[in-house]
């Protein structure tokens, strides 16, 4: 039977099917759910852009808050955010990449230690961010900071909220992100390359250092960028570990407190005595925060797409 003949026999079958109201409404309902998501994203972003675009000027980005935060700009908050994520990345990436290399190249999959690490990674990702804040306060500030102060006979230098404690708290929060994305990237490196390298007499570390890591670099960058974007937006973990409501000066030491964009949004939205006066500043701050996180996310998404394409091309 030719395909045309087959089609001819099938066509009447298709036409005889009764009008399917349940199916149609079900399909429409699921389409509506998808539409709702798109619409809500558009509404949120549209609202922020429409109300915030007028505020974001060079002066807004480069000046400090003035007159009880009803005028001026957000430069200290931008500066603090950048310092925070830079410190976080420095603390985070070596550990995250090291852990992923261990899990993927060195660990025996069934060893109890490997299983413990995987269990910890999976569950760290699920710990609420406010609990990280509690942990930062209890461990970094009171335990570590307090002990250092007592040991050095200092007054209170380390045992108080500070940039470095907030950065370390965020680093732990983002550890699973970096480990998971790095491992995914290591998986994309073809086995032949490993074998060729080992076959030429390279030691395992030489193979990792000169073959594996350069190959997996886009994936490692993706993880780092994603965690920076998350770090820039997370407020709950830094509430008690270092973020300041308002500072008249820029932080110049890791033991200083700092202003941060996300926390600044929270402060402007909830603590302002005159919300109408702060509203333009608030929208401007939200817009800047969104732009930063989205630019980072888009970079990460593009990198990951390239990585996945590479993986698909190889398997």
């Amino acid at each position, binding site marked *: 039977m030719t395909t045309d003949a087959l089609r001819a026999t099938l066509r009447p079958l298709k036409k005889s099917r009764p009008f399917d109201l349940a199916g149609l409404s079900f*399909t429409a309902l699921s*389409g509506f759910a998808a539409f709702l998501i798109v619409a809500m*994203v558009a509404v949120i972003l549209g609202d922020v852009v429409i109300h915030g675009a007028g505020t974001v000027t060079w002066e807004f980005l480069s000046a400090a808050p003035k007159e009880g935060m009803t005028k001026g700009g957000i430069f200290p908050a931008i500066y603090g955010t950048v310092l925070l994520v830079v410190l976080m990345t420095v603390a985070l990436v070596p550990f995250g990449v090291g852990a992923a290399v261990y899990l993927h190249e060195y660990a025996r999959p069934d060893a109890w230690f490997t299983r413990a690490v995987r269990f910890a990674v999976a569950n*760290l990702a*699920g710990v*609420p961010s*406010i609990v990280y804040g509690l942990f930062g306060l209890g461990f970094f500030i009171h335990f570590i900071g307090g002990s250092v102060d007592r040991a050095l006979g200092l007054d209170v230098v380390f045992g108080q909220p500070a940039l470095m404690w907030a950065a370390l708290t965020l680093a732990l929060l983002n550890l699973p992100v970096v480990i998971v994305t790095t491992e995914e990237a290591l998986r994309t490196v073809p086995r032949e390359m490993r074998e060729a390298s080992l076959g030429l007499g390279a030691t395992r570390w030489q193979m990792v250092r000169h073959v594996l890591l350069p190959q997996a670099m886009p994936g490692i960058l993706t993880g780092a960028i994603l965690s920076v974007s998350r770090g820039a937006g997370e*407020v*709950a973990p830094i509430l008690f570990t270092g973020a300041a409501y308002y500072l008249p000066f820029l932080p110049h030491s890791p033991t200083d407190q700092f202003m941060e964009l996300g926390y600044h*949004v929270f402060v402007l939205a909830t603590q302002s005595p005159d919300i109408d006066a702060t509203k333009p500043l608030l929208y401007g701050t939200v817009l800047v925060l969104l732009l930063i996180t989205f630019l980072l996310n888009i970079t990460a998404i593009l990198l990951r797409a390239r990585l996945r394409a590479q993986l698909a091309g190889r398997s």
Partner: protein
Amino acid sequence: MTTGSRPLRPGHDAAAFRRHQILRENVIAWILRGCAFSAVAGLLLIVLFVFKEAWPILGDRVTQQEANLAGFFSQPLWQPVSETPKYGFTPLFAGTIKVVLVSMLFAVPIGVLAALFATEFASPRLREILKPCIELLAGIPSVVLGFFGLMVLASWLQPITHAPVRLNAFNAGIALGLGIIPTVFTVCEDALRAVPKSFREASLALGATPWQTAWNVALPAASAGVGAGVLLGLARAVGETMIVLMASGNAAITSGDVFDSARTFSATIAAELAEVVVGSPHYATLFFLGALLFLLTFFINVAAGAFVDRLRRKLAGA
């Protein structure tokens, strides 16, 4: 490259070089193992220090005179800074349940249906629009969703719901729902995509319509993954802080009405911890709340993990 560039000149002690190399490899392996251990250490330290600061509630007489387990569950009021502090969990519990329930009722149907739409019905082009939107939504920091709930959503919802106050559990629940839709969607979509194409082809070949196939074949096959998505969404909803802190009104009142202001466990910690005296009963109580939050989300996540394993086994057996 130590091996490659070093010439094997006369007198070169190959054995010593080899010993050196083995030592170096071992040291590096131990360093990497240490990095991996940092994840385990992090989790252990979180448990240790959150529970350590909460311990006075269970083990310190002086603290117990003011804040104790019996009081948490029998005392009807949460007034930690009044003259005689009252630490009753009932209002916080009521607030948490209301907000989380609203957010789940909002986010789960939308997330699951949209995932079904994306995998079963949508044309590739529609999917190209939907997926980045989900990624965008997932990328919005929770403080921005809180801001949106506080400044915008509340003003839109109040005329519709006729709630007595602008900021209430319903408002916070919707804003929180926005935050967990990406979680529910992503996990469900992954599960649906993992269902083998042959399942659908068999169903269609037997004369089922696409929606019958989606509802009766794809969704049941992926049910464990959908369960995991719902549980992961629940864990996020319970632990999420900034959204509820900003959009719920933060009044610790015991009421069953979703249009009253509400205060959740997480928001209570965020709102009060900055002002408490370190080591005071109030401080220990807030850490105790944090420990409860940790345990709750921990068990929900473990359950979600079990669902994912079941899905993997089910589809591997197919």
